[in-house]
């Protein structure tokens, strides 16, 4: 009964993440049902869908924080290599007393861990990341004094310090203005250009049409998955809204 999710990629392409009839949920509430498909290595995919469609749950499932009720999620390559994850702004405590530089520096965790010192090379990378997102002069500012857009830039800088092959971002543009979105979108495209797999939960369909070659349309189940122009058709979007509304009737 699931409307699936044919993946149009050629078989030769390597999958970074493979989903096999995956069901995800908490207790008795199923958030994602029977999702099958793959995120190709080096692809740039937008995950869209109405509220409650299971977008965040899917990311959490791929991170391994929610184990599938059924089906399998396979990450390719180095099994220890977790994807780098960017939370929504509401998911962390932005009033915490910490400088912006220290906040961004957390991105180097996989190399410095809980105890090692920051080498000078590491510190150079940190400054470069701050520079790249336009926060070079904000290093000493307390995190709590940043605006929504500046905070989002800081989150991007933190993500830049990762060496992950897969980046997953949960609604990175929901609290920022146009100019910031454009700047940060540039960064996403640049990472993607370096053959990183990038998966982004988004609401702005225009942005998706402009920049994202691949789209996964979710509505509690996979509605469509593939080339953006084939996925974001009026019929599919209508079906997605219909499927999600059904939950509340």
């Amino acid at each position, binding site marked *: 009964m699931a409307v699936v999710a044919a993946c149009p990629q050629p078989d030769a392409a390597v999958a970074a993440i493979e989903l096999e009839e995956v069901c995800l949920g908490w207790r008795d509430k199923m958030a994602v049902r029977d999702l099958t498909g793959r995120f190709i290595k080096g692809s740039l995919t937008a995950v869209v869908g109405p509220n409650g469609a299971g977008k965040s749950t899917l990311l959490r499932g791929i*991170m391994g*924080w929610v184990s599938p009720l059924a089906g399998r999620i396979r990450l390719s390559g180095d099994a220890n290599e*977790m*994807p*780098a*994850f960017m*939370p929504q702004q509401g*998911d*962390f*405590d932005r009033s*915490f*007393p*910490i*400088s912006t530089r*220290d*906040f961004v520096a*957390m991105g180097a*965790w*996989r190399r410095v*861990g*809980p*105890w090692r010192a920051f080498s000078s090379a590491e510190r150079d990378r940190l400054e470069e990341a701050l520079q790249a997102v336009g926060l070079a002069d904000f290093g000493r500012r*307390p995190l709590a004094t940043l605006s929504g857009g500046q905070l989002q830039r800081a989150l991007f800088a*933190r993500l830049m310090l990762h060496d992950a092959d897969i980046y997953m971002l949960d609604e990175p543009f929901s609290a920022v203005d146009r100019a910031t979105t454009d700047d940060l979108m540039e960064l996403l495209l640049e990472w993607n250009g370096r053959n990183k797999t990038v998966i982004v939960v988004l609401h702005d369909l225009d942005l998706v049409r402009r920049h994202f070659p691949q789209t996964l349309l979710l509505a509690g189940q996979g509605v469509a998955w593939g080339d953006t122009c084939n996925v974001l058709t009026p019929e599919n979007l209508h079906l997605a809204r219909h499927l999600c509304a059904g939950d509340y009737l």
Partner: protein
Amino acid sequence: MNGIDALYLPFTEFGFMRRALAGSVALALAAGPLGVFLILRRMSLMGDAMAHAILPGVAVGFLTAGLSLTAMTIGGMITGLAVALLAAAVARLTPQREDASFAAFYLVSLGVGVLLISLRGGNMELLHVLFGTVLGLDDAALLLVSATSSITLLVLAVIFRPLVLECLDPLFLRSESRMGPVVHVVFLLLLVMTLVAGFQVLGTLMVVGIMMLPAAAARFWAVTAIGQMALAAVGGAFASYAGLLFSYYANVPASPAIILSAGIVYFLSVAFGLQGGLWQVAKQARARSLRLSRISERD
């Protein structure tokens, strides 16, 4: 005796005052930083709850072995940890939130503890447990409190990075390592340990004060977690000194005097603190309205 002498003579003349100062300063140095993290984790009430939770264990220790330091310490550790785990379990398995389940458990603990102590002891023993014996610290108690404080500070230094991450962005920590739950449990252990050691000094009811008041005050002066921890430790130590001096000259009980000094430090910080204190906020508001009126005059 002139003015300056009055500030140190009680401590040079009387051994019990020196012991009191050493014990309460040692306690404050570890309690303040822990308090900062309790506040940052939005768990201010948790310290209070845990302090009450150790009471039944202390009481059982007292029932079996009298006013024995070892028995009361072990008992306190056990019930403190048990309540922490039970409250967390209730919060996880039922729709009730953690703060409510903690409140329920600590109120029950308080009732059980007071009842148990009155079974064998009189009002003196009850007062001893509830308000501590800062002026009667023996070697064992002094050793216990200084050892726990040293361990607490060392362990806090070891888990500092993951602990900050756990408070600030738990999802991020989760994506980077599996340390999150471990760090949480270690932090709870340190908390219970410090409270159990601290009840010897200030009593179960007052020990939370030296933990939370300096930490809450530090927030008005420092903009980083490290700065707040250092200030909370120093502020707590100063409050201990000032409280003991006050209790000596005014002839009032020592542990409430220490907590009241910490309270004064807190209220002064609320009023005059440079990070959002009332005075500063009022000054900024005035400067703003002056600027605005100047702009409108020009127009």
